[in-house]
């Protein structure tokens, strides 16, 4: 299993390199620069150029790229121009809220989608199935921030149960911490629940059609056991992929929810970095997100091994 992991990890390096070149050139080409943002709206061109020189922004493209990439290899992603902390520190600080939100959202989504999807597959074509199909369609298509606003107005403004926005670290302040994360998790979770339900239903349906389920039925195994014991584990493979995907997209994509609920997550850190042209943060965060994405893919692969003996045993040449 180790050799398999190492081999897969090795394949990630070229991808990281490609990503680093893409994102560095994007940052380099973006009009505006940190010097101009530092000096503010009415700075004069001559002041901006002086500051650019002292920041090394006027060096040629490749010089800046290699200076950055060499430091990155040694673990030093540089310091932010605005957050007076190192990029690594900024990422650490901002990744925690996003991680907590992502975990909460996925749990909420799974709690809804696994049973819903499985039962919809079990009673295929029934009113329940059509109802679930309707819910998933709406869930997929409804613009996320409209849903967030409705939830905020309903639960915070009207019922005063939950705060409108903000973030407290649940580890240090559990009660308030959780209260801040419930609404964002609900608004994001509903969309991911819809998506995962569709996957669960599709893969369970597919497994129920297979011959080994028929074979088990012919030996007197009842329908519920067929569904949850025999079918669900086989159906697990595509579901795990989908959960991996959802997590990856949550980590980098909850930026809309983060801005509405004012959660200092990695998404908003990146959007602010783009706005302020904070190059070190921009490059550092994207590189970090790429590692998270590739890491998650690897994790999903390994989970495949856990669930599907053919993957696990064929690699170790057990035959």
């Amino acid at each position, binding site marked *: 299993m180790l050799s398999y992991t190492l081999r897969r990890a090795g394949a990630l390096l070229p991808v990281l390199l490609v990503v680093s070149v893409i994102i560095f050139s994007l940052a380099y080409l973006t009009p505006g620069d940190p010097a101009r943002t*530092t000096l503010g709206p009415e700075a004069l061109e001559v002041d901006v150029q002086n500051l650019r020189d002292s920041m090394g922004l006027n060096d040629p493209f490749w010089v800046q790229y290699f200076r950055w990439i060499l430091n990155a290899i040694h673990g030093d992603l540089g310091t932010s121009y605005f957050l007076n902390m190192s990029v690594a520190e900024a990422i650490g*600080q901002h990744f925690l809220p996003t991680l907590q939100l992502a975990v909460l959202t996925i749990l909420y989504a799974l709690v809804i989608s696994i049973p819903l999807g499985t039962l919809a597959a079990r009673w295929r074509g029934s009113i329940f199935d059509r109802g679930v199909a309707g819910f998933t369609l709406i869930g997929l298509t409804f613009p996320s921030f409209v849903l967030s606003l409705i939830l905020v107005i309903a639960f915070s403004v009207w019922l005063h149960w939950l705060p*409108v926005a903000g973030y407290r670290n649940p580890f240090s302040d559990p009660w308030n911490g959780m209260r801040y994360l419930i609404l964002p998790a609900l608004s994001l979770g509903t969309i991911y629940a819809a998506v995962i339900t569709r996957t669960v239903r599709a893969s369970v349906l597919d497994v129920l059609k297979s011959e080994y389920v028929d074979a088990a039925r012919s030996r007197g195994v009842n329908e519920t056991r067929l569904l949850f014991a025999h079918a669900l584990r086989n159906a697990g493979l595509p579901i795990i992929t989908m959960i991996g995907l959802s997590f990856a997209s949550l980590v980098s994509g909850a930026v809309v929810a983060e801005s509405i609920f004012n959660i200092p997550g990695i998404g908003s850190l990146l959007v602010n970095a783009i706005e302020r042209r904070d190059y070190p943060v921009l490059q550092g965060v994207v590189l970090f997100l790429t590692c998270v994405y590739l890491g998650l893919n690897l994790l999903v692969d390994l989970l495949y091994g856990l669930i599907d003996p053919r993957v696990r045993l064929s690699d170790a040449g057990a035959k």
Partner: protein
Amino acid sequence: MIHIKHVRGPLAATILSVISLAFAGPTASAESDALVVANGSQPPSLDPHVSTATTTNILARNIFETLLTLDANMQIQPGLAESWNVSEDGRTYRFTLRPGVKFHNGRALTPQDVIASLERWEAYSQPGKNIFQGATWTAEGENTVALQLPVPRFNALQTLAPLFAQSAVIMPAEIVAAAGDKPVTEIVGTGPFRLVDWQADRMMELERYDKYTSFGGKQSGTAGNRTPAFDKLRVEFVPDESTRTLGLSTGEYDLVNPVAFDNISEIQANESLKLGSFPGVLLNVGFNYGKPGIFHDIRARRAVSVGVERQSILAAAAVDPKFFRLNNHLMLLAQKQWAPNVGETEFNPADAGKAKELLKEAGYDGSELTLITSRDFAEMYNSAIVIQQQLQGLGLNVKVESYDWSTFVKVRADKNAWDLIIMAAVPKADPTQLIFLNKDLPGGAQDAGLEKILTKFRNAKTTEEAQKLYGDLDAWNQEYIPSVRIGEVDYPFAMSKRVEGLQVQYEPIPWTVRLTD
């Protein structure tokens, strides 16, 4: 100039009445003796010497202090300088420092700190470079600092008082030396609040400075006794405007600055909330003098000035008539010291026919003109849309390009990229610093007449002399029309009823607040 309005407005009828905001009373905010402010914009740094951003300056004034201050009527009052005197030739000023003032790190304030700070301020800030060129500072004894000006300046004292942007704040000498041209990272000042924690993009936590030495006299504007009546000041950076308004209504925030124009009506509808405003920006349509084109001809510029209908532009920009007004003069109407005695204040002919004639005379050939604006500021983006429509009504083939702020500033520097520009200028202490008259700004007007008046202005010895010159400057502006003034736009802010006694100078002053629960 305190705007505390308490106006009731009819609740807007809405289709989804279920969503209408029937506010219940605000719940108790987290801590009772803390003022929680929801700030819309983020400061790029807390160093007014280097950054021209108003947010930096306004947040920094809670921590750093200036030699002089301004009372409610914008008159100069003592600050860190307890007293001062001026030589006959008006070129030498001696300031006696207030005794016993300590920095937040406990170190006593010394003349060396003042000199190091103000020399850096002279080197890097706009007001410093414009007005204090060639000025020198020398320490005299334990508590006196002497300023030597190469030529007498009427506005020397005024520039050492708090400004809209880049105030001349005093920091410890060693910190200033270490920072150089980059923003200071160690934030130590003498002000009423001490910085406890600053997590950029999230929040800033300040605490009342126990060993604060207040200025003499009753509190008024930024002058007088500035000791805060509450312990903690927490500034939360909340970029999303609807979140700010909703947070105010649930009591999570005590003060929200700024409030979106479209949310004003529902704030007015709620008895438990109060509304206020402060002078925001001077809105102009600028021309690109760096690029050959139709607007080099005065007739084309006059056509635009005559043709546009300013009221509807301002209505699109600021919605509620309380927050905008016509003002064809250079300086804000509220800046009483600059009397608006030239030309018509409410200048808004909106005469499309005359405008078309002028354009024909100027020989406009129908070529496409680009109007650039930024979508990061609602008043710039909204007014651009309306102006484009009106100019097309006058026969000008105008297309709008709106950018995020950083790109906007870069595009402005490229003189071939645009013809017209929306200028939302921050008000200044004196007219010479207004960006409309600044020839160095990309696309700025280059006119000998203007430069003559400006140099005379800068060397004016007394305020009276400066006020007379302001008349000439205002007349030149209405004659030459370097840019078309649309009007003034105020920025509204809102607070819950637990906030009492708030005063405004440029923006709300936190330490003037008394919290009542």
